[in-house]
């Protein structure tokens, strides 16, 4: 009955789409939609609040320690919070050195692998390789730490000795107490160093860098690639002339995302290094430190004030990684939005 009514009324209303003023649909938000929107917004606000709470609570807990030390928090290398003599000069430089070694090693590997997957690898193999890179990013850090401690450490001593023997004149590759000519010299000066920790962290951050770079490389415009091939370019010529210039933002951003991860790595670094509280610029020599392993080492036996000092160290690490990540994501975002080209 109702459908008959509807068809009748449709006939009576003679062709409304021909009329002069077009019917504009208006958005009517029903009750369900209003509730829905409110719930979604609440979820967004909650997430934002959680993320803000990280910074706020660290700051609240850190104020007691920061009030005592003031600016010398950044310049003191020792960590003796119970006698109010502590600072992050040593651990922060240690963190930066480990991260720099990691990025210096992982960047060429990640770049090479990303280019390999996007341009060189046989097509049938590419999906498998992408999955393997993702798997590598999901391997727990404690597993990398075990590998570094029990496998890499013993195998990398030869490399450390070789580097310090031939390149020891470069200041940061110098090793105090090394005896280059002695085949029977103790190798313990080379263990637990910034270099070993950096190598392990490099393996952890390379997949992150690689997947960002690969995504950007895969977006390089097909028209430009084919144009380059049509002009007689080789595959490497196409990579040099099209893929790399297009993907520069992704390369920088991906590298910095890896750097952010490397700065915050805890367990693998903690397992490998033997902590020292002096600024240690010799990366091949035993003894290193990082902010996160300082926290992991001292949280158990810290007094209230010592905990506040650790919170301050955590806050410094948090701000550092946040700055690196913000820069990275804005570089990646800009490179993608600005680089649209007509194929």
């Amino acid at each position, binding site marked *: 009955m109702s459908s008959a009514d509807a068809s009748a009324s449709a006939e009576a209303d003679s062709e409304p789409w021909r009329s002069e003023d077009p019917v504009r649909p208006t958005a009517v938000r029903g009750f369900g939609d209003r509730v829905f929107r409110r719930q979604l917004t609440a979820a967004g606000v909650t997430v934002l609040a959680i993320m803000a709470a990280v910074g706020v609570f660290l700051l609240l807990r850190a104020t007691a320690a920061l009030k005592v030390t003031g600016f010398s928090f950044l310049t003191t290398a020792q960590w003796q919070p119970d006698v109010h003599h502590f600072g992050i000069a040593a651990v922060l430089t240690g963190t930066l050195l480990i991260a720099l070694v990691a990025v210096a090693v992982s960047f060429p590997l990640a770049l090479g692998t990303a280019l390999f997957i996007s341009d060189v690898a046989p097509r049938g193999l590419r999906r498998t390789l992408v999955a393997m890179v*993702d798997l590598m990013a999901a391997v727990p850090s404690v597993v990398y730490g075990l*590998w570094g401690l029990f496998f890499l450490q013993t195998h990398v001593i030869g490399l450390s000795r070789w580097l310090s023997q031939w390149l020891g004149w470069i200041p940061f590759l110098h090793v105090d107490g090394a005896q280059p000519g002695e085949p029977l010299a103790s190798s313990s000066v080379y263990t637990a160093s910034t270099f070993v920790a950096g190598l392990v962290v490099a393996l952890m951050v390379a*997949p992150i860098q690689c997947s960002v770079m690969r995504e950007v490389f895969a977006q390089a415009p097909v028209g430009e690639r084919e144009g380059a091939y049509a002009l007689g370019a080789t595959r490497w010529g196409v990579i040099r002339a099209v893929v790399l210039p297009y993907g520069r933002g992704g390369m920088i951003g991906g590298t910095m995302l890896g750097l952010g991860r490397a700065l915050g790595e805890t367990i693998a670094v903690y397992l490998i290094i033997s902590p020292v509280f002096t600024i240690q610029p010799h990366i091949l020599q035993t003894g290193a430190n990082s902010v996160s392993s300082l926290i992991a080492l001292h949280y158990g036996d810290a007094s209230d004030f010592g905990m506040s000092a650790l919170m301050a160290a955590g806050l410094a690490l948090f701000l550092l990684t946040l700055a690196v990540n913000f820069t990275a994501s804005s570089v990646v975002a800009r490179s993608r939005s600005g680089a649209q080209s007509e194929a």
Partner: protein
Amino acid sequence: MTVVQDVEDSPVVAVADGIAEEAVVPDPPDQPRRIGGLSRTGVLSLCGAAASGLCIAILLFGQLAPLSGAFGFTVVAYATFLTVYAVLTGLEEDGPAIRDKVMTVVLWSAASVLFSGLVLVVGFTLWRGREALPHWNFFTQDMQAAGPLDPLSNGGIAHAMLGTLIMISIALAITVPLGLACAVYLNQIPGGFSRFVRTIVEAMTALPSIVAGLMVYATWILGLGLQKSGLAAGFAISVMMLPIVIRAADVVLRLVPGTLTEAAEALGAPRWRTVWHVILPTARSGLATAVILGTARGIGETSPVLLTAGFTAALNADPTAGPMISLPLAVFSFVKSPEPTMIARGFGAAAVLMALVLVLFTIARLIGGRGAGHRSKGQARRAARASRRDVQRFDDLHAPALPLFDGENH
């Protein structure tokens, strides 16, 4: 630019040089450049270069020069290999082709180094775990009755496995609803605020995990005065997992075709129905992948648990009271001991953890391999059956009077 110049230059030179004009040799027909692929000479020169690189390195390290060390040997052998390969290729190809060949080999090597790193890490863990894994008690007992000197036939990691299970369940119970709702929010309600939330979330994906642990330590243990427990560890893992899940889910939701959403709205569906019945089912496999990959990261994190869960050798099934331990934390505490049996237990626990991550990862790949809107065979069959049912239902509704088509007769 250089290409154009080359083309213009050659006829000018030919015309100006009268003698050369008569002796002009017809150009060989254009050969399209080979891109990729292997030729027989390519394979032969690769093998030859590899052999000569190896031999020169052996000669240098064994006989001629005072060089030593496995790493130095590899570097010298590789450099010689590349040089010889470049020279061999140069015998019959031009400059760009040589560079291309050499760089292809370099890219192959970079990828093989990275992937052999992965294989080494996973393989080494599983291999060293072989001592502890065959003992069945390793999976059924806790460490309460086992001292550091006890053999592997006594004590196990049941408490750590249960702890990991409880912690990850708590973390999932928080991150899945909150994370997915936030991802839908970022997609469905655009505006300045949601852009801001997205920026913050993206910056937080690389939040140092120990900072997440510190934050829960500061609020839960110092602020509220509660003790370390599995619940606190679950919260810490959630703080760390949230940005990862939100970001991955956001990317997947963005891939849902706009035409589907528009079709739903054109049918008059309110926004929440569109999201619930169109967008989420379309992106289901991608969302599952996002959650599983976040889970894989959350399971493996040690440092948030280290600060918030405490440490215990006993089985504890109550997340609200008493310390709890998780698999990565158990690995960490086992290998800090100098006893070989404890280290063997550590590797056993690491192998179990690695196997867990591998299984999760495989599941994620299996259900998440397809993009948004691509259905598996079973899903397609179910959808076809549902739409046949709908057709049947419409027919049943309208069959007696046939009002849809014979409206004028009434």
